[in-house]
């Protein structure tokens, strides 16, 4: 049996009186790409932020068998946030130097290869603040992958990326799991999830509504593809029909 990369048990996140995540449980094993799918405001980002310790939460989180989120655990994690989390006063070169320095490991060849793959070379000495949204996202991706983390947490990682970069990123994710890594991946784009996820959890109003492989999810919902299965699972298919009729 594969090692557990992430165990989330009865996770609850509240913003004031609003419950964003409601007793959510799931686990990810090494070699898996777990897709967290849900509509806007379903609790995907809040779940990822909890795993990173960025928001107050109740419940259990065990990352790579090292316990709940801590600065020690962060050395084994790579993160791409929905909005790139970067130090914008720095240049990409300075940011990679900083990330490598605080992680205590820096594989220059890997960083150079990633920079070349994402065509960031000409932007390396420009302040991150001055880069386009797509290039900022690429800097975040390189920073997340440069230290070969065991677990990747990707919150809408393809935001603002061009087609070529998306293809490269998908290949990198696949290579990462082939090498024994694990991925928690949040998206609302069904086609992407359909192609790369090993297992899928459909989340709505902070709760897991369905979980399994792509085939299992489709069978549970009695649907022919993931989009239909998703809409049926969150009970939006009938609602959409009536809404469209009213328009």
């Amino acid at each position, binding site marked *: 049996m594969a090692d557990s990369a992430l165990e989330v048990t009865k996770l609850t996140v509240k913003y004031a009186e609003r419950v964003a995540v409601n007793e959510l449980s799931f686990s990810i094993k090494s070699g898996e790409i777990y897709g967290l799918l849900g509509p806007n405001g379903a609790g995907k980002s809040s779940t990822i932020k909890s795993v990173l310790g960025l928001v107050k939460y109740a419940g259990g989180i065990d990352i790579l068998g090292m316990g709940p989120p801590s600065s020690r655990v962060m050395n084994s994690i790579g993160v791409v946030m929905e909005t790139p989390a970067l130090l914008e*006063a720095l240049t990409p070169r300075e940011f990679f130097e900083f990330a490598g320095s605080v992680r205590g490991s820096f594989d220059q060849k890997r960083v150079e290869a990633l920079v070349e793959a994402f065509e960031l070379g000409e932007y390396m000495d420009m*302040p991150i603040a001055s880069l386009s949204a797509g290039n900022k996202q690429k800097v975040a991706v390189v920073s997340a992958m440069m230290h070969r983390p065991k677990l990747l947490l990707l919150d809408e990682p393809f935001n603002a990326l061009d087609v070529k970069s998306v293809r490269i990123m998908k290949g990198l994710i696949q290579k990462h799991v082939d090498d024994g890594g694990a991925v928690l991946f949040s998206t609302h784009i069904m086609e992407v999830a359909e192609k790369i996820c090993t297992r899928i959890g459909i989340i709505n109003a902070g709760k897991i509504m369905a979980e399994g492989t792509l085939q299992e999810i489709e069978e549970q919902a009695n649907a022919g593809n993931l989009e239909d299965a998703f809409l049926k699972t969150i009970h939006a298919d009938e609602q959409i029909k009536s809404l469209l009729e009213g328009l």
Partner: protein
Amino acid sequence: MYSVRKVASTVYKELLFQGYTASRLSGMRPSNSRSAIRASKWNKVILSVTYGGILAAMSVISYIIGRPYSSSLEAFVWSFFMVTISSLNLSFATQQSGYIKDLLLTLSVNEGDFSRIATLSFFMTMDFPVYSAIVVTAIISLLFGGFPYSFMGSVQGIAIGIATSSVFVIVGSKGSSRPRLRSIFRVVSILPLMVVVMFSSFIMEISPAGMNHALSLLPVTSTFFGGEGMIYAIVTLIYTAAFIVLALLLFLRASGLILSTQEIFVTLRRKASRSFNIRGSIGALLRVDMVQSFRSRIAGIWALPFGYLIAAIASAFSNGSYISSNTFMFIVSYPLILGIMLSFLPYALYLSEIRGAIAFRILPISPIRNLLSKEVIAVAVYYVAEVPMMALLLFYRASALSLVPLLLGFGPLFASTAFMAIFFEKTVKEGGALSTLYTIVYGIVTLIIDAIPLGAFIIIYILMHSYIYPSLVMLVISLVEAAVMMISLSKK
């Protein structure tokens, strides 16, 4: 058809919220958005009431104790702070405010109305404090009669305050092909603030009779002489008018920029490719702290301790005999206060991290390790700033033992920096949205943290007339405070 005033009011609310929470910069959203919006709305009201109250009290006291001229500088200093602090948050909001202009364009707002919308919304960030200062000082001046010291000082303070806020917006809003020059300009841009801080420490020490009359021709100090005769009153009026014109010009220039700013950092830097430079963890943090603070709008904070140092040295040279005759008082009133003033520096370093707070949290950087970097910088700057003071003491033949308090006097700064780390963690956890009252309470606690060891130093010195024991006690108390703070920080 839309109303420019209504659009401006909406833009103001957005700027206020973004400035208050810094959520666009930090990437964190407030844990309670409703309370953050409410707090941001009340921020300037609370500021106007509290600072207006202090301004009124200080001015009235000046009149009652027979020093009406002092009320001009009291009014100047407090009116200045009311305006600048109230609009300072705006500098966060305007760092990425270009989206507001884009949004307005998509809503068919006439581009010709943008400057009016920007001007109105910019003024709304400081309107209550301006009204509060003017009304309070006008009433006081009318009540006590004679030359309107309080009112004139307030008008000048408001004008310089508006000019300073505008400079902050202007300085941070444009790129440059000469980034180093830009950083230097950012450092220098805090000069008006420094001048006001200097003034606030000299208010109670001066009177027109004891002052060189050449000062009656200088800006701000001329108001002190306003009641001494018609010619002095005219000089004051001329300076006041000049300040108003300056403020107006800078205000219009700044308001033209606040809706078009996309980036705060220099954008045209290009270098020949170089290799990567990997450091130790603390070394990397130190470098990032320095780079971030120098490239951000708060770069001016670096000038503050050194400005105070220069003022203190100038003051010491003007009464050298004072140092040799009362070394203790000199140490307490200048070098140790300088150490406390340096508490602003770690706060500024933390503030520069708001932009990218999540980046720090997704890297293996514990709050303690982050704090250590701030401590190293703060203590290093402390010693750089204290060395001239030590030289001054030796120059005036003070005992070598009198250097001990300065050598060990980094303690209060060390402790308050640790407290600053807790404050920062709390700020980030709340998405940058702490209420004004909460911030004031934190400010007071910081002062208490500084004051306890300093107070112990003073009391033990008075009892023992020795520098060594009080200095050691001051250091031990500070280290205990710091240890408590660090334990609390590590548990967060």
